[in-house]
C-alpha cells in the first residue's frame, strides 16, 4: 500500500494546493475499491498487481491534469487581441529603436556593423520587456475575465464586411512597419543636423557631397508623404484603388529621386588620404552609384506590382 500512497502524493504534487487534499482523498478511495476487486480474484493481491494497476491509471502528472486540466496562459478569446497588440507594440518599438540607433550612429564614429549591432541589441531588450509586460497583462485579464468578445465583435454588421477580393488586398502589419521604419531612418539621416548639438555635429560624418545632400533634403517631403501613406494603410489595412494609385505615384517619385541622386557626381564626400592604398576613390563612387540604382529597383518593383494590382481590381 506504500506504493499507492507514493502514487497519490505524486499526483497531489501536480495539483493546485487548494485541491490536493480533496482529490487525493477521492483518488485513494477509488484506488482502494479497484484493489479490493483485484484481491477478490484468484491468487490474491500482489505488489506487482498494485504496480500494474497504477501503471494502467497513468503517469501522476497525466492523472492530475485529468482532474484539473491545465489552463492556457492567455484565454483563447483574448488571443487575436493579444497577437495584434504584440505586433503593434513591437512595430512601434522598432521604429523608436531605429530613430535612437540612427541618431547615435550619425553623432559618433560608429561603423555600420556596430550600428546594426546597436540596433539589434536595443531592439531585443525592448522586445523582451514589451513581450513580458504584454503577456503578463493579458494573463491577468485572462485570470479575471476568461472570455470576452470585443465591442467590435459584438456590434458587427455583415453589410460592413469588405468586398471579396484577392488575398493580396489585405495589408500585413509587417509590411506597414517595415515601410515606416525605412521612412523614419531616411528622415533622420536627412535632417540629422536639426537635433544635434554643435559638438555632436563637429563629430558627425556625412558621406554625401553637398549637392547630393541638397537633393536628399528636396526629397524629404516625399518621405513625409510616405509616412502619411503608411499611416493610411495602417488605418484601412485593405488595398483600395485610391490607395494603390497613391502608392504607385509615391514609389515612382522615389524611383526618380533615387536615380537623380545616383546621377549626381561626385556622390560621396571622401578624403583621399583616408582611403589611400585601401580602395580606389573612383571605384567607391561607382559602387555607391550602382548601389543606389539597385535600391531604386525596390520601389520600381512596387510600382509595377501595384499597376498590375490596379489592373486586376479594374
Amino acid at each position, binding site marked *: 500500500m506504500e506504493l499507492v500512497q507514493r502514487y497519490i502524493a505524486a499526483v497531489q504534487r501536480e495539483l493546485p494546493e487548494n485541491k490536493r487534499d480533496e482529490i487525493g482523498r477521492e483518488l485513494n*478511495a477509488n484506488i482502494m475499491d479497484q484493489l479490493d476487486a483485484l484481491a477478490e480474484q484468484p491468487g490474491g493481491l500482489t505488489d506487482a498487481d498494485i504496480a500494474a494497476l497504477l501503471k494502467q491509471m497513468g503517469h501522476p502528472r497525466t492523472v492530475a491534469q*485529468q482532474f484539473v486540466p491545465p489552463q492556457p496562459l492567455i484565454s483563447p478569446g483574448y488571443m487575436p487581441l493579444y497577437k495584434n497588440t504584440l505586433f503593434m507594440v513591437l512595430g512601434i518599438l522598432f521604429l523608436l529603436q531605429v530613430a535612437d540607433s540612427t541618431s547615435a550612429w550619425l553623432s559618433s564614429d560608429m561603423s555600420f556593423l556596430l550600428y546594426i549591432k546597436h540596433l539589434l541589441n536595443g531592439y531585443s531588450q525592448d522586445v523582451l520587456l514589451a513581450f513580458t509586460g504584454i503577456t503578463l497583462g493579458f494573463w491577468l485579464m485572462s485570470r479575471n475575465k476568461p472570455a470576452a468578445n470585443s465591442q467590435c465583435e459584438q456590434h458587427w454588421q455583415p453589410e460592413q464586411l469588405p468586398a471579396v477580393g484577392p488575398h493580396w488586398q489585405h495589408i500585413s502589419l509587417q509590411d506597414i512597419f517595415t515601410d515606416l521604419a525605412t521612412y523614419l531612418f531616411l528622415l533622420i539621416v536627412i535632417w540629422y543636423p536639426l537635433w544635434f548639438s554643435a559638438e555632436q555635429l563637429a563629430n558627425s560624418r556625412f558621406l554625401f557631397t553637398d549637392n547630393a545632400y541638397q537633393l536628399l533634403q528636396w526629397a524629404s517631403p516625399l518621405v513625409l508623404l510616405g509616412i502619411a501613406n503608411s499611416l493610411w494603410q495602417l488605418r484601412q489595412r485593405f488595398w483600395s484603388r485610391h490607395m494603390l494609385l497613391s502608392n504607385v505615384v509615391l514609389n515612382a517619385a522615389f524611383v526618380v529621386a533615387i536615380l537623380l541622386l545616383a546621377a549626381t557626381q561626385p556622390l560621396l564626400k571622401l578624403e583621399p588620404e583616408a582611403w589611400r592604398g585601401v580602395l580606389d576613390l573612383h571605384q567607391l563612387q561607382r559602387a555607391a552609384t550602382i548601389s543606389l540604382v539597385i535600391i531604386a529597383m525596390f520601389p520600381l518593383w512596387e510600382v509595377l506590382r501595384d499597376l498590375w494590382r490596379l489592373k486586376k481590381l479594374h
Partner: protein
Amino acid sequence: MTAAQLDKMRLELRRGVLVLAVLASLKQPHYGYSLRQQLQQDGIDIDEGTLYPLVRRLAEQELLTSEWRQGEGRERRYYQLSELGAQLLGQLTDEWQQLNSALGNLLGTASQEKQ
C-alpha cells in the same frame, strides 16, 4: 481511415453522450468505482481517468450532490443527481431522443442507399 483517426472520432462522438449516461446512472447514489461498474453493466465502457474527473466536474457545476460515507471499513464519496441535475437530465434526454430519431432516419437512408 486509420485506427488513430477512428479512435479520435469515436472519442469525440462519445464525449457528450457520456455526460448523459453518467447523469442518468446517478439517479441512484454511487461512489466512483460502483458507478463505473454500473456503466459497464449497461454496456458503456469508460476508463477511470475519464470518469472520475468528469463526475467531479459535474459536481462542481452543482449538477450532482456528494457526501462522504463510511462503509466496509473505509470512506467513499457518494454522488447523486441534484435537483438542477435532474432538470438538465430531462432536457438532455429530450434533446438526445430528437437527435437519435433524426440520426436514425439519416443513417437508415444512408444504409438503404449503400444496399
